[in-house]
């Protein structure tokens, strides 16, 4: 059996008196889209920061792609991609320059970098607008570019923190379609946080639900629905939040 992409044991992070992540034990299978669901302030973003090695755990441990995040943060970040709460794009730069910068960060050789920039922008249907400054773009286009940036160095694991938040239905659908196609084509593991339950149901083969930093339940969406006897994940999620 393949090594899990993410493995955490009693992962805990405290900020002063606030316990942001509380004894989280998870296993994310390689090659799956894993949904990480929870209300605002549940500890989803902090968990991503811990998994990327940006924060050290107060207690417990996490392994990402077989690497201990404490002490191997740089190696973890080199093999993963991330689209965090904000797109993180340099708005005064063009789309091409944004990708050029992150291609250089990944130390891709110049010919390979140029090839991948073209390929990724084509995948996202943004190639024709590559010279435009990003600040002129709609939020949906920026999110697609941010996904392209996160995928440019072909990471084995992609962290997506609410990628469709704030997008209109059309833009969100387009982004979901792009994501599904890319994930299917590249076979990467995706760790996705979202508030959008239909999105999680459609994209994820497994979901974990957290509340106040604690794991409530984990499993395939159909299994979680069945456990609480609800017809869809949204109602199942609400039922889990009430208990």
């Amino acid at each position, binding site marked *: 059996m393949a090594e899990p992409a993410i493995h955490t044991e009693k992962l805990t992070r405290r900020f002063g008196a606030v316990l942001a992540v509380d004894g989280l034990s998870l296993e994310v299978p390689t090659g799956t889209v894993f949904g990480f669901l929870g209300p605002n302030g549940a500890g989803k973003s902090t968990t991503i*920061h811990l998994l990327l090695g*940006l*924060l050290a755990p107060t207690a417990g441990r996490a392994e990402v792609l077989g690497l201990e995040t404490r002490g191997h943060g740089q190696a973890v970040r080199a093999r993963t991609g991330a689209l965090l709460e904000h797109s*993180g794009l*340099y708005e*005064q730069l063009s789309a091409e*320059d944004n990708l050029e910068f992150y291609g250089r960060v*990944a130390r891709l050789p110049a010919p390979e970098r140029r090839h991948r920039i073209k390929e990724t922008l084509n995948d996202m249907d943004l190639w024709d607008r590559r010279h435009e400054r990003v600040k002129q773009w709609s939020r949906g286009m920026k999110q697609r570019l941010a996904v392209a940036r996160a995928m440019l160095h072909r990471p084995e694991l992609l962290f997506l923190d609410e990628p469709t938040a704030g997008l209109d239905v059309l833009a969100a659908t387009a982004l979901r379609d792009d994501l599904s196609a890319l994930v299917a084509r590249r076979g990467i593991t995706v760790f996705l946080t979202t508030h959008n339950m239909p999105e999680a149901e459609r994209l994820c083969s497994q979901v974990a639900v957290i509340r106040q930093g604690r794991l409530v339940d984990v499993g395939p969406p159909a299994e979680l629905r069945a456990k609480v006897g609800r017809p869809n994940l949204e109602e199942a999620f609400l039922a889990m939040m009430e208990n």
Partner: protein
Amino acid sequence: MRTDLLTVMWKEWKSLFRDRASRTRTVVSLLAPLLLAVYIPFEESARWVTDPILSLLPCIPSVVILVMLIIPDSFAGERERHTLETLLASRLPDGAILLGKVLVAMTVGMAVAVLVLGVGLATVNILHWGDGPLFYSPRVLVTDLVLSFFFAVITAGAGVIISLRAETAQDAIQTLAATLMVPGLLLGMIPPVLLSLRPEWGGVIRRTLGAVGYLQVMAVVVGVCSAVAVGLVVVAMKRFQREELIC
């Protein structure tokens, strides 16, 4: 580390000159020092190329102003625009991010110091057209470039420390300007006040300065500047840690 450093510098350079507002701010901030670099040689004539103090007057402020505008935008501005978190989530080491940003600000600052010296030299040579070419004495050139370098490092170090705690780039610029003005004002105000209270000290100071040579004065100034610069850089490096920045 070298490749990562150059990558950060590439991005900083692009960001600095692709943004129209940033370009305008840079050009406007250069007007006063460049005017001084014309006015002082016009008034002082050939002394401009032999007296280090004269050329320092526009050189140091231009370096300080430029670095003071660039560093807060590069650190506090990046956080304000929500691009810092993504940058920190990349494989770039902390040191490459910090040094890459600081080196671009210092390069621009030093380039402006050279520009000011060039404009001043051109003015003097136009005024003395026909007398043969004039050039800076080695003492002037070394003093200006060395002190410009140290003031660039000091401003950058203080700028990083302040920017890491500031809410916005604007806040950081204001705090940095106020912080740098305090020692400047003290240096400008305390000696005249002391001399008015104790006029006899003036003679002592003049005799003392007359007895020591240029090299001794420079050694003391460089020693003090080095200590301050190293201290600020060490504090900046200690504060620029992913864990601290992401919280």
